[in-house]
């Protein structure tokens, strides 16, 4: 063995690390270019989102984000490694295959690559057709087939949406609330699973976040042209939401219009009082007008008809209307009376929040129970969150409430299948989780403040409660 080489220094040099990282990245890029590019996007956006955070907050931020990303990477890698070799690729959900196959077919048709005659027909089938398919086809035209990379792209898109909301909520509601919301959106199981899926949900999250920002700027922008630009943003993102899922435009426009009105009302206490006094009369007057009444009843009949359609689908379902309507759904459109419709409306909103009930005799529902309990907790915290939110940032809180309300009504009235309800409800969490987080934060702060007061007034209170003076720390988190 030659001895011409100089003795190796004892101190570890970064050269080997850089070389190792380069080799690892090269290997990873060879396996899945899209996954590496997606990780680069996540790192860049996360870096931008962590700007200006305090040291402690930054530590938590990166811990949450790295853990979330790592868990998702492990899940996607596990999917790849456990794939059935007799199939072209593996997927988390059956519906994903539609996206993976169709996007490649569309890409191939665009590039004049011959595909099977049957696939030409399926490529443009109306069932499941969204503009998202064309976006994914374009991505695969750039990076090649990416049946697993698309999962990481979804993760990147989802995280971009969540980080956008995080940066927006932090100055308004404080670092703790923002981190709480971020943790919820990253780790609530159903959201975590959707975030990895090659479905339209991750893209929906990004578009929803962007639309909410524009809606807030319609109120908050100082110059009129900025307001117009923000309104155009609301319309554009609303259309994008609608192209992904029906009712998106209604949620965007309805939520923004109601939000602007709500923000104007809550700006002065007297306006709220006057509005509360006038609202019953205005509502009564509107409902008593025959054209409005007819329109309202017709729309409700149509949503009830859709609901009845969901009830006959496979899986665990729940009923909102009289059982005699389900065997012959056309009756709903023809002859469902107003009192039945009113009962249906109330049942729909109630069921939206309580379904699936914990005692439901269904194994998948029982498996979902922990998250359902967490959902109940979040819903119970909402009133506290709204009150605390109005104290901290009225416009943003009102916008969150109105957007959530619009999304709740659209989904609640048409749902009937628990699986679909949970899937659609997860999108409303994007709005509600911040209010729940601020509600939880406010409740804990008040509890701790009461302990401090007890300790100050009654020194023995400290022994009784085992209290530590944490209230002041909680107060100072903004």
């Amino acid at each position: 063995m030659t001895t011409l080489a100089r003795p190796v220094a004892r101190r570890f040099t970064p050269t080997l690390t850089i070389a190792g990282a380069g080799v690892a990245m090269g290997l990873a890029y060879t396996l899945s270019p899209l996954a590496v590019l997606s990780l680069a996007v996540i790192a860049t956006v996360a870096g931008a989102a962590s700007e200006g955070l305090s040291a402690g907050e930054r530590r938590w931020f990166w811990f949450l984000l790295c853990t979330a990303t790592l868990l998702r990477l492990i899940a996607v890698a596990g999917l790849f490694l456990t794939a059935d070799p007799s199939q072209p690729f593996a997927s988390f959900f059956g519906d994903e295959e539609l996206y993976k196959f169709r996007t490649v077919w569309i890409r191939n048709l665009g590039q004049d690559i011959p595909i099977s005659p049957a696939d030409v027909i399926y490529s443009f089938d109306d069932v499941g057709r969204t503009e998202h398919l064309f976006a994914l086809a374009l991505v695969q035209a750039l990076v090649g087939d990416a049946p697993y990379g698309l999962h990481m792209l979804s993760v990147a898109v989802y995280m971009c949406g969540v980080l956008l909301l995080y940066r927006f909520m932090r100055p308004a509601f404080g670092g703790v609330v923002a981190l709480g919301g971020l943790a919820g959106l990253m780790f609530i199981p159903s959201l975590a699973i959707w975030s990895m899926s090659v479905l339209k949900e991750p893209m929906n999250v990004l578009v929803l976040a962007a639309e909410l920002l524009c809606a807030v700027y319609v109120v908050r922008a100082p110059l009129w042209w900025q307001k117009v630009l923000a309104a155009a943003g609301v319309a554009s993102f609303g259309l994008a939401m609608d192209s992904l899922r029906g009712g998106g435009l209604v949620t965007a426009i309805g939520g923004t219009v109601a939000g602007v009105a709500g923000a104007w009302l809550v700006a002065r206490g007297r306006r709220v009082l006057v509005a509360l006094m006038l609202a019953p009369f205005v509502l009564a007057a509107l409902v008593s007008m025959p054209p409005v009444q007819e329109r309202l009843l017709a729309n409700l009949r149509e949503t009830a008809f859709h609901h009845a359609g969901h009830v006959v689908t496979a899986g665990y379902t729940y009923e909102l209307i009289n059982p005699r309507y389900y065997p012959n759904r056309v009756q709903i459109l023809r002859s469902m009376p107003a009192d039945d419709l009113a009962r249906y409306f109330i049942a729909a909103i109630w069921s939206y929040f309580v379904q699936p009930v914990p005692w439901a005799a269904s194994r998948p529902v029982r498996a979902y129970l922990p998250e359902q309990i967490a959902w109940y907790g979040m819903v119970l915290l909402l009133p506290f969150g709204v009150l605390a939110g109005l104290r901290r940032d009225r416009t943003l809180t009102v916008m969150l409430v109105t957007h959530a309300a619009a999304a709740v009504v659209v989904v609640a009235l048409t749902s009937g299948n628990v699986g679909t309800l949970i899937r659609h409800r997860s999108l409303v969490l994007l709005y509600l989780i911040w209010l729940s987080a601020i509600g939880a934060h406010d409740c804990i702060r008040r509890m701790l403040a009461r302990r401090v007061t007890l300790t100050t007034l009654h020194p023995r209170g400290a022994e009784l409660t085992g209290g530590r003076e944490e209230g002041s720390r909680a107060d100072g988190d903004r």
Partner: protein
Amino acid sequence: MAIVDAQGRLFGRFNLLDAVVLALVAGLLPLSLAAYSLFREHPVRLVSVTPTHVPQAEDLRVSVTGENLRPFMRVSAGSQQGLDFIFKSTREAEIPFQNLPPGEYDIILYDQAQERARLPKALIVGPGPFPSTQMIAVGAFGNLDAEKAQKLTAGLSLSGLGEVIQTGAPAPDRTPVFAGLSRVAVQVPNALQVPAIVRLRCGVRALQGRPDCVIRDAALAPNLLLLLPTPFGDAPFLVDQVRSIEPLEQIEMQVRFSGDPAILSLIRPGDADRAGTANELVAGAVIVTVGPLRRISETVSERQATVRGDLQRAPGGWLYDSSPLRAGSFLPMRTPRYILQGLVTELPAATVSGATTR
């Protein structure tokens, strides 16, 4: 002894850097081999198809052999997609086809994304025991707007199914539909219909022994509603009359009508039988001259008439509305005012060439 000594040697024998490089090379080799065997593409190849020559049949099954076949693959014969891909092994699969028309086909193998292999002109489908043929259908294209009605002209190709031979004047659309056993003419608002004679390709099929000429899974017959491919999309075509492709000849014959004097007195020159339809293009018969009413008894009279009919020459004689017509046959006369049957008393022999053809 120190693991790495003062000279940087491992166990006092190897230079540490050399050892690292050696370990790296030794480690990379199996890693590369493992990666190669795991991620190596297994190119798909088609080797053969059996049988290579088959007669046309409703259901057809071919077997392909190749390399690295996978269960999710598909096969097409030209643009005709196989119904299934019955995977037997990585070297063999079976593909069923339905109604593959006669012709020479490339056998093409696809994976989930695109075409992967092709055997050019590997499958020849010959004519089946039942032939393909052509028929003349007279009817009307419906549900048209003025622009589409204008585009329907003689010579228009019907995308491989046939062609338009003659068209009539557009009229408001009235499509007869079945209401129980009777037929009801349904008005289609703001739509036009165009009478037309079309030549259609159809295949003879014998379902349960009954021979039919089938086009798009439907046996060609009067009252059939077909969707025919036109340059502006599929257009509904309601068939009024079907006949063979032999030309029509206008032949004059003598016909004696007998019956109620009141009804016989309604016969006038120019009255036409259009096979019970209102379609001007349907082959029929026209009264040329009509003789005086001759009373046979109190309630029965007779009238002699010269009738010019659109007849087709057939080996056994003349055909009128696809039925044999000879002296002694009854000729129906269905007009908007009356319906009668006349006895053909005099008809030129079918071997004599006719006057005009259409």
